[in-house]
Structure formats: C-alpha cells, structure tokens
C-alpha cells in the first residue's frame, strides 16, 4: 500500500462551478479512509434545476455538436495528460474496491467510450437519433399526424462505485438525452465522476452540457438532504444503480411525478454444455473463458460469473470431468492479465471461513485454492450450489455438476442478469427458456464482463426511460372523425338504420 496521502478533499461540481468550502468529513467504505466534501445542506439550493425552462439551451443544440463535445472530452480524458484522473487513480488506493491496475485499465477505456462512433451507436440503438434531434412525424391509421420527440429530464443518478466506467456512461447518457444530471457519487468512488466533470469545466466551462451537470457527495439515506432534493419540483427521474440499500433508500421518495429507474443488484451465472470436454484444447479454452467471466474486474460486477453449471453429468465420470475443469479454471484465474484481474484488494473473511468449512466435507465439495485470498474454485459434488452462493466474491466460483443444461433454469430468477453460455448452439436452446425465469442477458462464454453499453440493460432500456416521450398530434376533422360529430357517437347499427 502506498503511503496514505493527505486527506482527500472532494469538492462538489455544480453546473460548471467548483465548490470546496463548508467542508465536512465523510467515511469511506468499511472505515478505510475518509474524505472532505462540502456540507450537502449548503448545496441544496444550488444543485436542483428548479426552473425547467432552463433546459431550453440543450434543446437547441444540434446532435452533432453533442457528439463533437463528447469526442473532445474523450481526448481530454486520456489518463497520461489528465491531472484530475491521475489524482483519482492515486486516491483509488484508499477508496476503490478495485486494485490500482484495474482502476488504471478502466480509466484507459474512457476515451473509447466517448468516441463519436460509440456515442452515435449508443444514441441510435437506444432512443434513435432522429427522436433526440427533432420531432419525428408519423401518420396514424385514423388519419391524424403525430410528431414524437424524446425530451431530456431533470435526473439524479445514484451511481455505483464498483466500476469507474459507470460515471462516464452516466455523463454520456445525460448529454445525448439533453438532460440535466445530478450525479450522487458513491463513497467507494468519490472521484471519477468529479474528475470527468472538472475536465468538462476546463474544456468548455460555459457549454450547456457542462452547465447541466452537477456532481456531489452526500450519504445515501441522509433524509435531511434527500427529502428536499427528491421533490417533483426539482427532479423528474432518479436512476439508481447497485446495492440493495441504495435502491431501498431511494424507493421512499418515489411518487407521482418522480420516476425511479432502478438498476437493481444482480448476480450472474454460467451454463456449460458437455461439448466443453470434447478435446483437451476445448477444455482449456473453456477454462480460460470461464476464468475471464469470473475474474474480470475482480468479480466486483453484477455481470461476473459466480455459480457455473456444468452439464457433465453427476455420475463419477461426470464429476471427474467437472473437477478437472474446476482445477483448470483455478489455474487460469492466476494467468489473467493484470489489467483484467488481480488478487482481490479485500477478501471477505466470512467467505473464507465458509470456504474453509467446506474442506471438512470432501465427499460433497472439492475446493481448489482459497487458502490466502487469491481466489478459489469450489466444485460441488452434488447438483446444488453452496449455501453461501449469493456471497461469492473476490474471484470465487462454484461449479455445479448437472445432467442436463436445462436444469440450470431452476436456480435462475430476476436477480440473474447475465448468463454466459458454452457452446453457442446451447445458447439458442436456452434463450427462449431462461428469460422466463428472469434471466436478462445471454452471452458467449468469456464475454460476460464485456458488455455493449448500446444494448438493453437489466431487461429494460434505461436510456429510453431516461427521456420523456412527448407527442404532438395534428388532427383535421376532414380526415380524423371528431368526437363532437354525430357519426362518432353512433353505433354501426344506428348508421345502418339511417
């Protein structure tokens, strides 16, 4: 661990302005470090956009200007020449759940996230650029002409801190939807959103996109602050990421006029068909891919694999194959590149105790590794996951032998976000069944932790929900029968009578 730096001050960024006075102390996660931020009470008047007509400046921006702005921001976010990100990286040692190589690798992905092709794809695949840009006309069957446009909204983003990319993505979504964002930073990543915002302030302090972004920290659940902020007069939408607690905090404020877009806590799983054992080379490939799904970003994400169902059968031969695969996955975990996966920063001692407990039952569990927090693979010898499978973390997988891949559906529910599948053909048979149990994404094995941000997320399209879909209808009595006319009141029978 590097020497503790001087205590961190995380200023608030409010519509292009940096606020760094009236500082009060806040604890980081798990009591590791603390930081100073402005007293939230003092921000209460500045943070909300009380006058909605002030979104007008965003409304008149051409979409291409938004793309150009974000592209330029992406260039400015190159780690080597961005002092704000460098500071965030230096302090991540004290705050992040990730290790430094992973934070660095995440920061290095930021420019690509803001690149013009990526932004255009995101906008077009989620909402459709024409709807973001202007009124899109459509003639309806009853003769009226409707024009539909996606409007921005005043939104609070309660973001998660397990990946710095969430801060970047939230800022992009806010810009393309022409919305006004207040980003509530998490205590395990108080700096990434702030670093991007400060870069925006350096780059274009008066640009409407910069002026419609605020980044602040307050303790989630601080009702004295939240009760005032979360009012329909201030905020129209709340995007809440992550933990059960953060989503539950926010739920109490939801009311007519204030919508919650909840990206709930999730877990992910894996289903591997018996084809994995067709040759030693195939098994090695499957082991590497599974290790990637388990180990990427140190298993901090909801997209990471945890329980891995292996359809090798539960007879002794099948078990022997699953045990071999488990050992191979454990070996591969340690060969993953540093930028993708490292030894976890903190290995949950309660989880370690549970894993060590299983060593007493070799008839039922085979445990590879896990002796000193480096990660582990637990192979169940019966067709059921370990009792603590919801708490697997720190690069720990639980392989569960099953006879038929379809049996995996039993354990899937609305908490199951991603299912990595091998081989491809198996995905085709599972994709019509698993979603009925709650599964939201199926992906080729090895790509679980490599999602495309332009696709639906958690079985919803969050960006479509972040905009307000506004309709302008033109109706001409000559083409669309008016309600006041006799004809519209009469039933068909009455007409025929006449």
């Amino acid at each position, binding site marked *: 661990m590097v020497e503790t730096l001087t205590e961190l001050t995380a200023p608030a960024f409010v519509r292009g302005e940096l606020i760094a006075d009236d500082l009060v102390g806040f604890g980081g996660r798990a009591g590791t470090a603390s930081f100073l931020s402005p007293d939230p009470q003092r921000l209460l008047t500045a943070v909300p956009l009380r006058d909605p007509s002030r979104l007008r400046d965003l409304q008149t921006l051409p979409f291409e200007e938004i793309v150009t702005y974000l592209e330029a921001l992406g260039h400015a976010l190159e780690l080597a020449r961005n002092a704000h990100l460098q500071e965030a990286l230096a302090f991540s040692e004290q705050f992040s759940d990730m290790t430094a190589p992973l934070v660095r690798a995440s920061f290095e992905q930021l420019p690509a996230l803001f690149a013009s092709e990526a932004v255009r794809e995101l906008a077009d695949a989620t909402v459709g650029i024409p709807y973001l840009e202007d009124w899109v006309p459509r003639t309806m069957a009853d003769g009226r002409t409707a024009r539909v446009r996606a409007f921005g909204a005043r939104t609070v983003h309660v973001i998660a801190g397990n990946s710095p990319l969430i801060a970047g993505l939230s800022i992009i979504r806010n810009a393309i939807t022409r919305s006004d964002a207040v980003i509530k930073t998490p205590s395990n990543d108080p700096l990434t959103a702030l670093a991007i915002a400060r870069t925006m302030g350096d780059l274009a302090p008066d640009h409407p996109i910069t002026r419609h972004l605020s980044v602040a920290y307050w303790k989630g659940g601080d009702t004295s602050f939240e009760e005032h902020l979360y009012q329909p007069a201030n905020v129209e939408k709340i995007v809440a990421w992550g933990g*059960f*607690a953060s989503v539950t905090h926010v739920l109490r404020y939801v009311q007519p006029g204030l919508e919650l877009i909840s990206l709930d*806590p999730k877990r992910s799983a894996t289903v591997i068909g018996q084809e994995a054992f067709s040759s030693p080379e195939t098994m090695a490939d499957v082991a590497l891919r599974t290790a990637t799904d388990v180990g990427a970003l140190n298993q901090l994400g909801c997209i990471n694999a945890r329980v891995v169902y292996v359809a090798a059968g539960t007879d002794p031969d099948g078990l022997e194959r699953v045990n071999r695969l488990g050992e191979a996955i454990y070996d591969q975990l340690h060969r993953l590149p540093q930028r993708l996966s490292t030894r976890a920063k903190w*290995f*949950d*001692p*309660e989880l*370690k*105790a*549970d894993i*060590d*407990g*299983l*060593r*007493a*039952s*070799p*008839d*039922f*569990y085979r445990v590879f590794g896990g002796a*000193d*927090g480096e990660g582990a693979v637990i192979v*169940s010898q*019966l067709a*059921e996951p370990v*009792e603590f499978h*919801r*708490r697997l973390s720190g690069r720990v997988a639980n392989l569960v032998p099953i006879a038929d891949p379809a049996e995996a559906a039993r354990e899937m529910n609305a908490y199951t976000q991603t299912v990595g599948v091998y081989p491809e053909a198996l995905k085709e048979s599972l994709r019509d069944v698993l979603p009925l149990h709650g599964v939201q994404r199926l992906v080729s094995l090895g790509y679980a932790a490599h999602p495309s941000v332009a696709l639906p997320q958690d079985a919803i399209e969050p960006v479509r929900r972040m905009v307000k879909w506004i309709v302008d209808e033109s109706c001409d009595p000559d083409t669309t029968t008016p309600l006041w006319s006799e004809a519209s009141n009469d039933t068909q029978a009455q007409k025929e009578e006449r």
Partner: protein
Amino acid sequence: MSVVADTLQFGDAPAEYFGHSWYAMQHVPADELAWLQLSTLQRRFSELRDRIPTLQRMASESGIESIAEPNDVVPLLFQHSVYKSYPASLLLRNRFSELTRWLDRLTTLELSAVDVTDCDSIDSWLDRLESETELRVLHSSGTTGTMSFVPRSTREWDEMGKAFRCGLFQYSDPLGTGGRHDGEWFELIWPLWRSGRSAITRFPGMALPYLLGSESRLHALRPGRMSSDAAYLAGRVNVAAARGELDELEINPALRVRREEFEREQREMAESLPRFIDETVRELQGRRIWMLGTWNVLYNIAKAGLEHGLENVFASDSLVTTGGGAKGQVVPDDWEETVQRFIGVDHVQHCYVMSEITAINKMCEHGRYHFEPWIVPFVLDPEDGSPYPREGQHTGRCGVIDLVPSTYWGGLISGDEVTLSFEQCSCGRTTAHAARTIERYSDKQGGDDKITCVAAEEAHRAALEFLTGELA
C-alpha cells in the same frame, strides 16, 4: 495423586479437579494454568488427531505433528461453518445416511453401524442417533435457513453440567470452600421448551441431574419438546419470505402426520406467559429461584409481570443468568433494572456463551467475561486469521479450544469480535478475560440476507402457523 493424573482430571472432569469450587477454577496461578492448558491440549491433539477424520485431514494438510505452544494449534481450529458443511439437499430430502456419514467425520463415536435409512425427519434422525449411541447432537437455531450440528456426547454434557453447578454458588459460597453442596438444588424457571435438540433447549436436560435434582424443580413455561424440524422450517420460512419465495417452499411430507404435535407447540408458545403469571409465580412466590434466558426473553417476562402488578416476586438471593448479546435489537436502557425489580434481586449475572463450547463464561464485578480454565481462547487477526501474541490485550476474532471434549475436536473459530486480555484482571481472577462489547462479524458487515436471532421467536411462530395451516 500424580501430576499426570492431575492433568487428566483437569480436562476430563474439571469440577472434580477443582474440588467443585468455582473460586478455585478462576484463581489458578497463571503459570500453572498455562501448563495445565498446554499439556491437556497436547494430550487431546494426540488422542484425537487420528480418530477424527476431519482433524486428521487438516493436520496432515498443514503438516502439524505436534503442539509446542498454544498458538501452534490455530491452523487446526475448525471454522464454525464446518458444522454446517453438508449440502442442504441432504436435510431437505431426508438423506440421513449421508448426513450420518458426514457427521461421522467429526466424532470418535462409531456412527457407521447406526441404520438411519428409515428416518424421515430431523427429529427422527436425532432420536435414532440418541437411542443407539452416546451422541447428543446440539444444533443451531436455524434462523439463517441452515442448521449446524455439533456432535457432543453424553460425557461432555455431564462434565458441562457438573462444572456449571460450581459457578452457581458464586454468591452463597464466594470462596468455594463448601465442597459439593450436596443436596442443595435450584428451582429453575425455564422460559422456553422443556426439551429439544438446539443448544438452548438441551439446557434443562443437562441441568436436571446436577443442578435441579428432580423434574419437580424444573418449571418450564413450555412443557413439551421443540421440534427440530419446526425450527429448521422456521429459518427457511424466514429466508423464503424475505426473498418473496414462500410459495415455492417445499415441506417434508413426513411432517404431515405430525400436525397435532405442531399445534401443541403453537399452543405452548401462546400459553407460556399466562402460565408463568398464573401458575409459576403463584407456586414459587417468595422462594429462591433461578432464571436463565436471553435479555429479550427475561425482559418480556418482567414487563408482563410488572403490568400484572407483580414486583419483587421471588427471594432476594434468587439468581438471574443471561447471555447471548443484543440479538440484533435495540436493547432498552432499563431492561436489566426492569428484570431486577420484577424478580427482586440486585444484580443479573451476564455470561459470554457460545453454543459450541462446554463453558458458560461469567462476567466479573469489573465487567469482564472470564473464560473458564478449560477453554483456551485465542485472538485472531480478522483478515488473515493469524493469532495475536498471548499477552497484553487484543481485539480480533475469537478462537477457542475447549479441552473438555474427548469425542469431538474442541477447536473452533467463532464469528465473534472480542477484545481479550491475557493479563490478570483487577478482580483477581487469573483466567483470560474479554471486554463487555462482543459483536458478530457478520452483523458488522450487514448484509441483505441477514436475519437476526430475535426474529427466531417470531419466525418459529410463523413457521408453526405455516405448518399447521398447510397440514390442515
């Protein structure tokens, strides 16, 4: 008596070794205690290492052949999760032969000959083990949806009862010079079920021969047995309800024929307070009683009593014993005073209890929990599990080795955070002592799936309602 014989008796029969004096237990000169503990630990290890398969495996994996000093045994302490390291389906699907084989790896008793193939419930399984072996398994409350099973035998229960008796004379014979106090018995007001297999419901059975002397001195507010199946189901109902999966809960079909038993349990739960007020108080008013329970149980009884206008109900030399922590509830400031006022005593004896060990460690007048001498405590680094030096004071995870057990391994790593001192306490006792605040690491971390113990009573009621409703 030779020194070797002495040592044997220290671990095998501590009450006799100390002449039935709790004072003596707590005042062994430090050097002598260290020697007694180490030599007994060495003996237990050499006796048990090849007879308990799980210990044997751990010893060979960690390459530990012998114990030169107490900290050497730390790699061999069992995680508390060892006692629930069986797949849940074994219990859910009545696979008791496999469960017996699993349990067999944790005890020296011969379980392989016991035929449990026709057992169709936890109760029937434990009945069978009890009728054919010396095993008297204790299980956890099951509130988290899983159940731990600790293979204690009659021998350890007996020694525990005898040793526990010594401590009950702490006020009437403070220097412990009165020997065995033959013929002196206690009237136990027992707020829970008369019997059962959970650690706590085993208590009356253990206490009866050594502390009560006769069934007539056991005043159980719930006279029947607590079903282990109902307790297990209570935890599962709780967890399923929290996850919104109650509809999917499977019930063991074998329980269907036992509806009357569960209705009786349900009735006893509802009747226990009225029974106490109407019968127990009337019978024992003004007499010396002994009452034992977690704070919330004692507090609820005292409150109900005071509401009925009852105060200072029993003799002032009555005993009140409590332990078990806050149980995830906010403890009212006046709970202890309320209990004292109702019973009519001027103090409550606090204890640090851990169901896996054979000692009930009492708090001294300086607010420190003193371990009984046959418990060797360790403070472990909460992150990597390595032991802190056995001197000074440290805060960390509590590990222990209980030197009484001879049929199972007494080494255990608990889930508790303790602040433990190895220096002599200002009260004069020579045993290691822990500060008042003891927390569970799992509570400190929070966690969405957490269900607290107090919910247990509620959960048990809910489970019985669920069961009797389902079986109607």
